[in-house]
């Protein structure tokens, strides 16, 4: 077909459109963080004092608010809770009205105007994100149709589907939790991973190598991408948790110096404890999926290579990641490790995931050598 666009060409176009939209979303989200910083400028950083009593009020307020139905968005308090984590949905409000109320309960940390202003950029960011996602999804589906199989069978397609999952999980989670402060990270990740792989990993559609023709390709790789998405969210939250906990520590010092302007947005974010318990929740979902990935991979290996486990590079890293996250879960339950140290484990875990993601490429080259069939 000399003149007509092939399906794969369409897919590439859609993917690039998505990359551009993600980049725009990134800018909007970054502006949102900027607006948050501005909103926080006037705020006294005395949140720690009286936090416990205020938390009580929040609980009372939320208890009432929780009965309303419909879409529930969550507004986080600025409260620093020295006790264990307060799950964020305790402060559930109902839509914008609820948000406003929660804000007022907090003692005017954010006036209405700045709240609205902040929401505008975040909203634009999210809208762009949804639009990008639709393009991305369409690009992925057309790629799948062009290839006549699931669109996750080589490095380019892993990145495509993996990033799609990250964005999807982020958008779905947004329905319940207002995590738009993670938008910069997620859209940034999408630009880098998707754009980067479109530039460096792009390959034309070729038929699947025999060892890949298996139902396990569909299940195993898909679930792996899904858990990667949850790990990514946990990673973002853990990073923020570390920043937040540092801010909280500094704010408690009597002669604390004001923080750098860029980090002021942290004041409008939930406390480190809340971030931590959210990160934990995503991490354990990711971990459950990862455990399944590991098992499914072994079943596949048993069929394809005649052994369920052989410590080949890819297997080793899947195992290492699994153990790292098991370590993270333990750390959260170990006295002296909950908090910053466990957050570092979550960050290290996700670093290993990304590393594994790039190793995958080499792995599939290795598979050809393995099967010796091509």
């Amino acid at each position, binding site marked *: 077909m000399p003149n007509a666009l092939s399906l794969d060409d369409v897919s590439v176009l859609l993917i690039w459109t998505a990359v551009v939209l993600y980049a725009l979303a990134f800018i909007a989200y970054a502006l949102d963080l900027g607006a948050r910083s501005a909103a926080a400028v006037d705020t006294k950083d005395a949140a720690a004092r009286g936090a416990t009593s205020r938390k009580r009020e929040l609980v009372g307020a939320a208890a009432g608010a929780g009965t309303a139905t419909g879409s529930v968005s969550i507004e986080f308090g600025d409260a620093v809770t020295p006790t264990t984590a307060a799950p964020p949905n305790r402060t559930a409000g109902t839509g914008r009205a609820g948000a406003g109320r929660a804000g007022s309960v907090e003692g005017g940390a954010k006036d209405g105007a700045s709240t609205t202003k902040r929401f505008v950029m975040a909203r634009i960011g999210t809208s762009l994100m949804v639009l990008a996602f639709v393009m991305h999804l369409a690009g992925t589906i057309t790629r799948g149709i062009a290839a006549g199989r699931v669109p996750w069978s080589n490095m380019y397609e892993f990145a495509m589907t993996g990033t799609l999952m990250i964005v999807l999980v982020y958008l779905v989670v947004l329905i319940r939790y207002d995590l738009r402060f993670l938008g910069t990270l997620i859209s940034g990740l999408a630009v880098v991973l998707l754009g980067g792989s479109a530039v460096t990993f792009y390959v034309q559609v070729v038929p699947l190598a025999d060892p890949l023709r298996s139902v396990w390709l569909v299940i195993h790789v898909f679930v792996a991408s899904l858990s990667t998405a949850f790990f990514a969210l946990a990673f973002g939250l853990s990073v923020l948790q570390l920043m937040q906990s540092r801010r909280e520590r500094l704010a408690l010092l009597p002669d604390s110096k004001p923080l750098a302007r860029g980090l002021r947005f942290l004041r409008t974010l939930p406390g480190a404890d809340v971030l931590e*318990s959210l990160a934990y929740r995503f991490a354990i979902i990711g971990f459950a999926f990862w455990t399944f990935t590991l098992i499914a991979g072994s079943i596949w290996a048993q069929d394809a290579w005649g052994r369920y486990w052989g*410590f080949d590079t890819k297997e080793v890293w899947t195992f290492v990641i699994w153990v790292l996250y098991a370590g993270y879960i333990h750390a959260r339950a170990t006295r002296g490790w909950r908090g910053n140290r466990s957050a570092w484990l979550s960050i290290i875990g996700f670093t290993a995931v990304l590393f594994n993601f790039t190793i995958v490429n080499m792995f599939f080259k290795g598979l050809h050598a393995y099967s010796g069939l*091509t």
Partner: protein
Amino acid sequence: MDKQARSADPLRPADHVDGVAAATPVEGVTSPALGFVGWMRWGWRQLTSMRTALVLLLLLAIAAIPGSLVPQRTADPNGVVEYLRNYPELGGFLEKIGMFDVYSSPWFSAIYILLFVSLIGCVLPRTKHHWQALRSRPPRTPARLSRLADFRERDWVLGGAEGGGDAGTGTAGAEGDAVAAASRAIDLAQSQLRASGYRVERYDARGSFSVSAERGYLRETGNLVFHGALVGVLVAVGISGGFSYTGQRVVIEGTSFTNTLLDYSSFNPGRFVDTDNLPLYSLTLDEFEVEYEVENENAIGQAGSFVAHVSTQHPGEEPKKDSVRVNVPLSIDGNKIYLLGNGYAPTITVRDADGNVVFHDDVAFLPQDNNMTSLGIVKVPDGLATQIGLVGFFYPTAAELDSGALTSSFPALVSPRLTLDVYEGDLGIDDGVPRSVYALDTSDMTKLTGRTTDVASLQIDPGQTVDLPNGLGTVTFESQTPDAPNPLKSVKRFASLQVHHDDSATWVLVFALLSLAGLLTALFVPRRRMWVKATPDATGTGVHLEYAALARGDDPTLAAAVEAVERTHIESLGLEPREPRESKTP
């Protein structure tokens, strides 16, 4: 928390975040004379602490990494040989510290064995404790529920159309009415909580009625199943090593192999395998089929859809048709047969100068590239004036490069051609040292044809015969289709098969799935306590209702759960569901 309440809690290592600080063992500093038993106990506590488990887990992760950076003997034996050749010094050092066998090295084993000792030491007491907790009563209702984070309350005013209406009238009985109403309210709460899966216990005291409820014992059960099943996986893997075997064998079209030790080219039995009594069956490769991509321009020549059509046969039975495919092994007698590789096996006949056959066989040529340029060796020890060795290249679609050298331009049999370099001299096979059939040791041989000699390599197409140099005799490249020349079928193929026996794989899978189920339960079943308390007020006109809950472990849905309990309860008491935040003013 009183003693009873604590005993219903899961038992945790002392340094668990939910652990009780007082239970921390007194460490060396304060008790100078621990004694032997004391030290043992101290050491055991250290080994089974959360911190140790955590450190060992992290160590395990780190220790596993080198095995992905350095080739491993089990996964990539040739890689190890190559590594040792390329970096003899570094390689020697790495060899010494077990870097080529990371996963069976003493240091790696030490970590996971310690980890599992710790695991068992942690899980056993917890299992015992949990077993008891499963039959214990939910804990006493705390005196002041309002101290709990998730607390709700409301006042129930009796009289009128409301709940207490059926009781007697008059002020004298009012207090009694309130008491009766409170008791009734708790009866109701009790049955509602029980219906939604809580274990319940009444704690009525003078002046108030309450029900204490607990649910989510499954969470701890799941945790124990998870950790226990991990031990199961390890044990199953450990045992499997002893009873499994793996053998490899190249089978050429039209030939068979029997599942006996002698018939394998390589065989790795576990320690307890009875190699004399392998299940007896034979397998014949009838045909090997493969498709090569011709349409997709980006993948011309890509091979796929490999099928080895085979016949299997038990002694005294009819042969059965079957097949071996990639991802679809053939199961027979508890063995699984996998397709590992394939290639061409040209049939070669060597005759002496008088025309007597001195060699006739199908020779498996090992593929060297994607277009199946293949390398093979023929050794003729007897029958000729000297021993000769032939080093051959086979090109399924022979094409000439500009340099004049041959190459294969497509993996299928389009224009097959064989080239042979002839060596004469000592094959080195008479001294009893086993030699690979895929390698020729030319150290004691003289090259007669090919590069560095002035005689060109022998070039043969299927069906042709050419002369060996020095009048030694002739070589024939037999065609499989002598009567109706058809290149596509002119050369035999071989399949390289792996036979694997491992009964434990099923057990490993069962334990792995069990541990996954345990994990899901442990992570996502909420464990919580719930209390409903009713206190008749002194005037007898109302009842004060309190609802509170306490999470054990991470439980994001706790607040919603209290609220739901309250709502159900209040509605069934006939009270109006109230507006949010009515009774609680900030």
